[in-house]
């Protein structure tokens, strides 16, 4: 019964005129911008963040979330039609989606994409509804030590589960934590790492960090790529009619399995901290190939190869809201930005969020459904327009994005200084990208840093400076053990590799 009254509350919020309007604006911006090759949800959401400053926090969150899942969706369209994935997570979709386009079945691929995404998202929302409140209830009993350990786990998991060097990822998290320190220390009133700049006393703005590290760095590096990488293949699709999109009955019946399996994988992966839609999509694809009776068809335009990863990455996008909303621990970078947006709007994320802001939480959940329905309706008839947008040449696209980045960073505090800060992060981001340091963990550290320091300080005050306080509570011990395990595992793997190569020599 409680669930029903909560849902009613959510509907009341989500069906308000403003919420519907901004949800619609959000998913539309998300789809259109996300469909642009090379512009992922990261850039879209950080560019759009300043636009929400004037809005009511609930509506702002609904719009930002809409941009996020809309962009996820739009990204698959450019993967399928042009083989130019906007994000890593939709790269998997291109494996079979693009061959389908080449076989003249682009319409069907887009239809499968739409339906699989819709099913994945809507089913995963059920999980968010079921789990987020109970996890939050459990976490309400946490004190500062447990909270510190949860956040530490969130950070370490994000580092060790991402691909590439774990050491480099850990350095990036630590760098992010340092960035979070910049500004006036609230406890002592001492300015830290402001280097005499007045503009830094309030801390670095999230927008500057995100748009610099991801937006500017990405554009500079895309400009440097050889021509073949961009705008390259001319789209072969001239017109996709509605009839082309409908599957035959035997094809339809082949889709349920992959969609459900993909949703399952996506939901589990997405709700773990540190592993986003990319991992989910890859795992779903691998799984589908394994269970298929015709694995040799994968890569040549298998329907299952589009349905499963699409269901998985959209399910994981929704499931990622579980740790974000119930614990205040972002699962990946985009969630970190959403969390930062909440903080900017004066909402304190954490276990008390759901109970103290029920209208916002349930409104957001219901808006996920509304948004997904909107996406389905928006996308099927508008495919033709989307195709046009995708083919906007980069010579027009890049100045536009840079313009939005500049104005966006200015608008945070109406201050030119922030634009220069963004530029500095752009340069740093480019260097990091060149040296294959993944900048995503920086943002996680940046968001969680101030909260971690506060909880560490509180724990130590309570224990009178005794560090063993972290080992006194069972939940905290368990969390720290998982941290240790995550850190040791990759090390063990490398050691094994080293031993094996030493033995064979």
């Amino acid at each position, binding site marked *: 019964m409680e669930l029903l009254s909560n849902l009613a509350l959510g509907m009341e919020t989500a069906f308000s005129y403003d919420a519907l309007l901004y949800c619609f604006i959000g998913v539309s911006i998300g789809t259109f911008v996300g469909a642009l090759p090379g512009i992922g949800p990261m850039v879209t959401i950080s560019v759009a963040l300043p636009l929400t400053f004037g809005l009511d926090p609930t509506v702002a969150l609904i719009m930002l979330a809409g941009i996020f899942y809309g962009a996820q969706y739009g990204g698959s369209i450019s993967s399928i039609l042009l083989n130019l994935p906007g994000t890593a997570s939709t790269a998997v979709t291109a494996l079979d989606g693009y061959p389908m386009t080449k076989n003249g079945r682009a319409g069907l691929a887009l239809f499968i994409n739409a339906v699989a995404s819709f099913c994945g998202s809507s089913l995963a929302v059920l999980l968010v509804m079921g789990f987020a409140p109970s996890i939050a209830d459990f976490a309400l009993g946490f004190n500062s030590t447990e909270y510190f350990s949860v956040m530490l786990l969130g950070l370490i998991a994000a580092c060790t589960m991402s691909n590439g060097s774990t050491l480099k990822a850990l350095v990036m998290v630590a760098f992010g934590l340092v960035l979070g320190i910049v500004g006036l220390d609230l406890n002592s009133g*001492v300015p830290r790492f402001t280097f005499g700049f007045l503009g830094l006393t309030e801390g670095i703005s999230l927008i500057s960090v995100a748009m610099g590290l991801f937006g500017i760095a990405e554009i500079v590096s895309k400009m440097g790529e050889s021509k073949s990488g961009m705008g390259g293949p001319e789209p072969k699709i001239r017109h996709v009619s509605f009839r082309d999109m409908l599957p035959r009955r035997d094809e339809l019946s082949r889709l349920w399995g992959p969609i459900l399996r993909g949703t399952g994988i996506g939901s589990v992966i997405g709700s773990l901290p540190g592993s986003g839609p990319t991992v989910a999509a890859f795992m779903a694809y691998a799984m589908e190939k394994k269970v298929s009776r015709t694995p040799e068809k994968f890569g040549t335009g298998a329907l299952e190869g589009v349905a499963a990863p699409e269901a998985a990455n959209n399910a994981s996008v929704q499931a990622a809201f579980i740790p974000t909303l119930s614990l205040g621990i972002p699962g990946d970078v985009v969630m970190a930005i959403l969390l930062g947006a909440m903080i900017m709007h004066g909402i304190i994320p954490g276990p008390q969020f759901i109970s103290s802001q029920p209208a916002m939480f349930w409104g957001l959940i219901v808006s996920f459904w509304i948004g997904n329905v909107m996406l389905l309706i928006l996308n099927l008839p508008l495919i033709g327009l989307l195709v046009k947008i995708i083919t906007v040449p980069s010579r027009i696209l890049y100045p536009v994005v840079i313009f939005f980045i500049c*104005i966006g960073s200015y608008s945070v505090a109406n201050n030119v200084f922030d634009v220069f800060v963004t530029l500095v992060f752009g340069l740093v981001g480019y260097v990091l990208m060149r040296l294959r340091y993944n900048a995503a963990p920086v943002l996680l550290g940046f968001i969680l840093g101030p909260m971690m320091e506060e909880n560490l300080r509180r724990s130590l005050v309570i224990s009178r400076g005794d560090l063993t306080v972290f080992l006194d509570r069972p939940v905290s011990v368990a969390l720290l053990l998982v941290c240790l395990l995550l850190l040791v595992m990759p090390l063990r793997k490398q050691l094994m590799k080293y031993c094996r190569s030493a033995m064979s020599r």
Partner: protein
Amino acid sequence: MIRKNDLSEVLFAFVIIAFGLFLVYSGIDLSIGKMSRIGPGFLPLCLGVVITGLGIGILFERQEERNFGPPNLRGLILISLAIGAFAALVETTGLFPATAALVVLTALANNHERIRPLTLIGTIAGLCIVGYLLFVVALQLPFRPFSPALFSWFTGTA
């Protein structure tokens, strides 16, 4: 089979170590406090130690082969100029000149896709209009299309 790490990788590992040591130094400088009452320098100190250690680790870690082309210096410099010009101009001369400078410099940065003058002007005009309507009219940012200072500079009545 052990390949020497790229020079830039090694140099960057030293940058990381130096950064870590700087944090340790400034942590002590900011005052660490006592364990029961940690000061503003406690976290910087801890992070400094961690970063220094990780930097040393990276120095000895074998890096995978890289396969990108040369760094895009031209793009980097011109994009920096574009953003710098926007920042310098937007409050002094107004939104429209700043937008024009940004678009021209960004277009120059894109070295393998030439832009025709007409497209350039169209992009500038479009962005000026969208920027004005969205940010000045709707979101109330304190920009003027052209600042009055610009006119007085032209007419010499400053």
